[in-house]
């Protein structure tokens, strides 16, 4: 059986007036049936754009280029826009970060839920209403029959996100993309939503791609993690390896710059500098540097002299991009 999702050398770039911004820079990964995969990285690292590219939701001036984007063996790039529409929402669904801006304020929750169900499953109005109400109940919304006729503004943030999840799951998609689904929520509500998603994951056999910048959230949700930096995958391993024994200095930095709720730390170790502007990354220099920088050296350098390391991290990211790797436990760093 082939992997559920196969992405090979995906490039997404935005052709702006100031130049070409390579948001996603040749990423390759697979997703198995029933697997939950996390994508971590800071803002602007391309994690959302990568997922939107897979669903072909990138608009002008963005351009998607890939050797393969296969869903269950079917090459998505060769499909027509019309065919693609039958896949979006049906076989692949998306939960967005901000539930207020991603629900349409002028339609009722019910209308928006029904729309997808009627389109993809060919149910009539009455059937789709029953189905929608079932979905709302499944995601733990009380008085589902009433909420069906309410507008998004009358729901709280947590409830809206639940409605969003109901909508995404209503057609029983094969892959669910969850793009920072809890970032806009308070911790106690976040705990509710994470519990709900974990519970649903076990009940429905859906593969999840969970995007977040919070390794804490990720470690509660997924089996395997991809760490992205400046459009490249720099580390890909199972969650335990990533947290306990990160290979790449950037991953190491991400983990150690965050205070822990369960352990006292003397001092946080920040990642120095800031994420470089994607418009002017000196790629040639970096690739050359990358070959020369083994990761242990990079980690040592990182601890003693912070200034160089953003460049080293980037460089390390490039080095392995050009190499053939097995899919698991790969790091874009030469150890």
């Amino acid at each position: 059986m082939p992997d559920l999702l196969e992405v090979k050398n995906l490039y997404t770039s935005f052709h702006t007036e100031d130049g070409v911004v390579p948001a996603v820079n040749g990423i390759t990964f697979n997703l198995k049936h029933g697997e939950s995969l996390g994508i971590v990285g800071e803002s602007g690292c391309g994690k959302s754009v990568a997922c939107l590219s897979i669903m072909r939701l990138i608009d002008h001036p963005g351009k998607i280029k890939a050797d393969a984007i296969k869903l269950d063996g079917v090459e998505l790039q060769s499909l027509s826009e019309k065919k693609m529409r039958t896949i979006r929402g049906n076989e692949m669904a998306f939960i967005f970060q901000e539930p207020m801006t991603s629900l349409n304020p002028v339609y009722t929750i019910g209308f928006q839920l029904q729309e997808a169900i009627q389109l993809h499953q060919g149910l009539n109005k009455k059937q789709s209403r029953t189905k929608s109400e079932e979905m709302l109940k499944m995601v733990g919304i009380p008085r589902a029959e009433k909420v069906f006729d309410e507008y998004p503004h009358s729901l709280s943030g947590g409830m809206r996100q639940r409605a969003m999840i109901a909508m995404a799951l209503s057609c029983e998609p094969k892959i669910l993309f969850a793009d920072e689904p809890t970032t806009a929520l308070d911790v106690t509500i976040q705990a509710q939503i994470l519990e709900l998603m974990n519970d649903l994951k076990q009940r429905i056999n859906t593969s999840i791609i969970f995007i977040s910048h919070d390794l804490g959230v990720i470690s509660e949700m997924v089996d395997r993690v991809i760490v992205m930096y400046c459009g490249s995958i720099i580390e890909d391993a199972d969650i335990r390896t990533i947290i306990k024994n990160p290979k790449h200095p950037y991953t190491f930095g991400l983990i150690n710059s965050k205070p822990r709720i369960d352990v006292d730390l003397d001092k946080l170790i920040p990642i120095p500098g800031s994420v470089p502007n994607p418009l002017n990354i000196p790629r040639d220099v970096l690739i050359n540097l990358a070959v020369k920088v083994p990761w242990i050296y990079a980690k040592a350098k990182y601890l003693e002299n912070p200034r160089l390391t953003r460049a080293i991290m980037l460089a390390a990211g490039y080095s392995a991009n050009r190499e053939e790797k097995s899919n698991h436990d790969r790091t874009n760093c030469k150890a």
Partner: protein
Amino acid sequence: MTEPIVKLENVKKYFPIRGGVFSRVVGNIKAVDDISFSIQKGETLGLVGESGCGKSTLGRTILKLLDPTAGKVFYKDFDIFATQKEELRNLRREMQIIFQDPYSSLNPRLNVGEIVGECLEIHGIAYGREKQEKVESMLEVCGLAPHHRRRYPHEFSGGQRQRIGIARALTLNPDFIVADEPISSLDVSIQAQIVNLMEELQEKFGLTYLFISHDLSMVRHISDHVAVMYLGKIVEISGKKELYQNPLHPYTQALLSAVPVMDPDHKSKRIILRGDVPSPANPPQGCNFNPRCIYAEEHCRVEEPELRDVGSGHQVSCHLVEKM
């Protein structure tokens, strides 16, 4: 034991709800409701709570950036709410604020030198050349370069902007700083930079912080004491260690258990709270927390609990604290 630098006594801040033809006051939003605590010199008090619990309002009310409804705030020996004009302005020199959003809290039409140096002129401390030198040295202290003085806010990243915000707060050499979610709009790797900077500055200048945040892990890292707010009230306040190891209020317990732990082997008994925070315009009868509390008993729904000391400065407002 050091003396408290800031002391709050029954501070209240209500926002009136107006309605009807004559815009009469039809109700109040009790954003801050009867809060008392004190902050010792040189320490950091972390103030945590979910959005809408009134923590930012409290921070601003302490500095009299918002007019209080009732209560008293003492800064050293001055009653802040009673001081007026000139005297208040002099006090402001010693109390500053760092805002949450570094994108909207810096005037885009002023360059960094003007933003950071403005207060020096207003308070008549330094002008011209002297002002410029002070600004440059302050920028260096905050991890920026002196030549950044001529640049405008849009030329900086979020983390750098927050450094400008910190430099602005520090130029007057204050003693007390309210940091209103200074890191929540920044990326993880930048958050650590800013927090480390704040810790260094605290050591260097002997600052006292009121650190407002919803990030419980970060508050654990930076604070000496922690206060937990819920619906305009303090529900628990204690030393950091005590609070994180032995939380007594059911809300604090739930809040702490809700934080995701970065450890795949971690198995915690998570307390999932039901429902959302009630509207502060219409708070529940009795204990504010009773509709979501798993331990709530009959009298929790009738009688409001008081903040009581349960030993060694650990204060909790819960009827059932003995059973916890």
